[in-house]
């Protein structure tokens, strides 16, 4: 998606939420969420044999103007630095936002504007 807006990344949190720059009304588009996160499973050990404590993202929601796009209920096997891509229809301009929480209680969020021509 060459023609895309990269949302500003809040300091200390690193993520990308990418949508096309300008959409026509009724157009189908992909929203891509990419989160920098180790997604530590709790099954790995470090060089000294100590178990690395589990810390995966346990909840993630994607909202458009506070309406639910998706909610991740179980994300056990997402890879490190996970990406989630979904399809939406451009009906009106608004704010797309993602919010997540990991097992250690860290929260993150990112938002981006969806601009629909004439709407």
């Amino acid at each position, binding site marked *: 998606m060459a023609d895309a807006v990269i949302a500003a990344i809040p300091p200390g949190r690193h993520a990308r939420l990418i949508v096309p720059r300008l959409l026509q009304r009724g157009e189908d588009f992909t929203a891509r969420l990419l989160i920098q996160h180790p997604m530590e499973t709790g099954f790995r050990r470090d060089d000294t044999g100590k178990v690395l404590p589990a810390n995966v993202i346990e909840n993630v929601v994607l909202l458009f103007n506070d309406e639910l796009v998706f909610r991740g*209920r179980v994300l*056990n*096997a997402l890879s490190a630095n996970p990406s989630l891509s979904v399809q939406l229809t451009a009906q009106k301009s608004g704010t797309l936002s993602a919010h997540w929480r990991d097992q250690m209680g860290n929260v993150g969020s990112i938002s981006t504007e969806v601009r629909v021509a004439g709407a």
Partner: protein
Amino acid sequence: MPKHAQRRTLLGAVAAAPWWWAAFVGTASAQSSTAGSDALDERVRAAVLVRGGLSLDIPVIVETGTSVPIVLFADPSQLRPGVRVTRLGIIAPKNPRPVALDMELGALMSQARIATNIRLGASQSVTGVALLSDGTVWQQSIAVVLTGSACYDGT
């Protein structure tokens, strides 16, 4: 079909449900906080698993199990009018935690389609699950072979 016969068919379907089914539904009800989701879980407990219109796009040979691309897609042309996909999930039976992914879809999604990367701990048959608003469950499985890397990396 008489009512009791219909019930027997449903019970038969539940009995034939794969072992992970309880885990999938169980995990979901343990984690869900809304009454609506619990009600949905009650409905899917007696669900019939059919292949339906779910497609699963995943490489059949994978070199590194830490990140395997997967696309779950529920074909809308296979849906009856007024029915939508409410949840998409992935079951990886040989992973230490077999319920790999469970996503609840809002009405804003134009297609029931999720693309992501998952971890696979071993060669296994990966199953995709789609829950429909009428209680139907679509499932699709693909066998994935994990070959391992050529050079072991200890850095």
